[in-house]
């Protein structure tokens, strides 16, 4: 016997919501999913009327669903936002070139303007070229740091007021777990914030409208809406340690579906002892981007790549920043330490 939708009690249920366990019909699910995101946006006051909002679009399910839902809500509730798509081309053959094709189709489908910024034009390096030099061990560090800044630079070119990214509830919960496992109290403190405000120059406020949306529901939404997205994992595999945290989170969700929300709630309510050292944010003296050091991570990584010393940005070499800034030569010993990369 078909199960009835527990919300409208008229239509047939086609799915069980992973978040609540309720059986719903398609349209009631769409409504619930979109309304929850609307509630998130309203109660956290993510946007103001008249703002230009850049959606970080990768072609993957999260950002595709984000773009779709924001467009729907902007019309339904008359947010008065100017939405546009912003993509980063990392230069990864067989992954990003294909996913960018998806973004280009999204541009047509959603009728939103698209801008693509590439690592190659910003940094002079594609990820493929970086991997050739650094190997597969730390490549994600480079990619993550560069992407963060690339989005900001693209957004600045377009005079965007805010950037929103497709981070979902699973991502946020996983990051909480990661930061606990790494004892990174500063990030633990920040990682559940739904939006970051920029105090300094060089960074544009960011927000995560999908912060409370379960990954499983994003997949269901995209599936039932027949959204066009690209579902291949990055060819340069992510680090194993994060993989442990991800598996653990999935297992927790299987035991108790509310675990994802519970972890986010925990993260939001943690308070850090006074006197625990938190990094002070300043700006990079080379490029002006926010940084807690004299040089931002991106500039250090880039310097390392250009000098053929890829280890410069991996690990702690703050002492060397002054030398780099004043363009002094490194000693042979220093060079040796930074050259060797374990593959």
């Amino acid at each position, binding site marked *: 016997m078909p199960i009835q939708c527990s919300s409208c009690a008229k239509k047939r249920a086609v799915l069980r919501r992973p978040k609540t366990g309720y059986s719903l019909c398609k349209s009631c699910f769409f409504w619930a999913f979109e309304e929850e995101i609307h509630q998130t946006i309203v109660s956290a006051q993510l946007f103001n009327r008249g703002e230009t909002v850049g959606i970080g679009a990768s072609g993957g399910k999260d950002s595709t669903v984000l773009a779709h839902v924001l467009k729907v809500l902007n019309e339904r509730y008359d947010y008065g936002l100017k939405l546009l798509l912003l993509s980063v081309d990392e230069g990864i053959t067989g992954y990003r070139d294909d996913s960018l094709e998806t973004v280009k189709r999204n541009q047509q489908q959603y009728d939103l303007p698209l801008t693509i910024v590439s690592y190659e034009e910003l940094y002079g390096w594609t990820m493929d070229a970086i991997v050739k030099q650094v190997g597969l061990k730390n490549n994600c560090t480079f990619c*993550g740091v560069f992407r*963060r800044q690339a989005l900001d630079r693209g957004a600045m070119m377009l005079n965007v007021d805010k950037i929103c990214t497709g981070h979902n509830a699973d991502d946020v919960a996983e990051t909480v777990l990661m930061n606990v496992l790494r004892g990174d109290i500063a990030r633990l403190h920040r990682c559940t914030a739904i939006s970051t405000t920029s105090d300094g120059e060089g960074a544009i406020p960011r927000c995560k409208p999908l912060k409370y949306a379960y990954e499983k529901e994003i997949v269901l939404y995209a599936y039932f809406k027949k959204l066009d997205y690209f579902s291949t994992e990055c060819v340069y595999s992510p680090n194993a340690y994060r993989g442990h945290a991800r598996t653990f989170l999935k297992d927790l969700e299987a035991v108790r579906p509310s675990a994802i929300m519970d972890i986010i709630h925990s993260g939001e309510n943690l308070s850090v002892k006074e006197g625990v050292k938190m990094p002070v944010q300043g700006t990079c003296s080379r490029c002006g981007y926010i940084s807690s050091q004299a040089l931002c991570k991106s500039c250090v990584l880039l310097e390392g790549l250009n000098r053929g010393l890829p280890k410069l940005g991996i*690990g702690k070499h703050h002492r060397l920043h002054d030398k780099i800034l004043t363009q002094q030569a490194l000693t042979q010993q220093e060079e040796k330490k930074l050259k060797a990369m374990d593959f």
Partner: protein
Amino acid sequence: MCQVDEEYNSPLEHKSLPAVSKKCMKCKEGTAVLIIRVGDAFCRSCFKEYFIHKFRAMLGKNRVIFPGEKVLLAVSGGPASSCMLAQVQEGLSRDAPKKLRFMPGIIYIDEGGVCGQNAEEREKAVVQLESIFRMTGFPYHIVPLEQVFTLPESVLEPVYSREQPGSSYKAAVDQHIRTEVTRGHGEPAVEETQDAVGRLSLQASTYKPEHKLALEGLFSSLKTLTAKQDMLQILRHHLILHTARINGYSKVMIGDSCTRLAIKLLTNISLGRGAALAADTAFSDSRYGDVVMVRPMRDYSSKEIGFYNRLFEVQSVFIPGLDTKTADKASIQRLTESFVVKLQADFPSTVSTVYRTSEKLHTACPPQSSTTEAAAKCLLCLCALDTKAGKLQH
């Protein structure tokens, strides 16, 4: 989406094979019998010294236990709490000035009624534990979990004493020394202990059949093992707290190792107890006001405790718990435990890193302040409420 948009500096310390060193790193003479961490090899006697010192250092550093104070040791029969009992015995037997000077008692909560043990099995466990407890000469309390139904409602309210003992550790020490001098001997603990043993042997560990039924009813109404484990922990604390209060104990020692605390921290995050994390895992927890819970074993790993118990023949008793013989994914608590244990095997710094996180957290419910509204506290765990109903945070 790719999650690497935050940079992480140092690659994690991966397991490396310890170099086999034959000599003790401390005395450089004795043959090493164990390696606690990579590079830390100890001979038997140096390990004992190190282990005992750590216990005293933990108490000394925190200065919350006063001379002459009555302290209740919560012993479950497991390795960590049994080891804690052994450390207290060892500390009290030492010569002054290294001697510990508080007055211990022991409490065991018999949870067999919800852990699937029959009356016979429960009795057997209690007999085993009693023989260990008797040898210590400390008074002890065997309390069946069923007695939770006899507790007064007031156990759910924090009690604040007018005097603040925390304000002057030194005054308390001075006071204690003066009392000892006027009495003319330095062994008050033993004298009172013998009295107490006589008194306590009369206190039978009984429970009423209707309470047994009520307890079974309560636990069968909880649908998941996660909720059962959560409830058991809360009820256990209520019983310990009440026993401490009626017998005049102002401190309770809980034998959580750092391995246990790391698991607890991660479990509590997964259960949404982030706001109560500091209270649940800190060295001292004063949420109840008049009775303070302390965790003196929090610097030892379960591995160290295992070594110590084996080398120095510390007896422990295996008593099945709620999650004994359950699958890894039977509950949030169980899953977290197996996750931490496995990760620790691959990344030996896991437990200590997670554990150190707990030291950087702040208690959300400020302790020892009677000004905090009673209404803002959770009725079950007495931590500050972190729920703003109907409103999303941030």
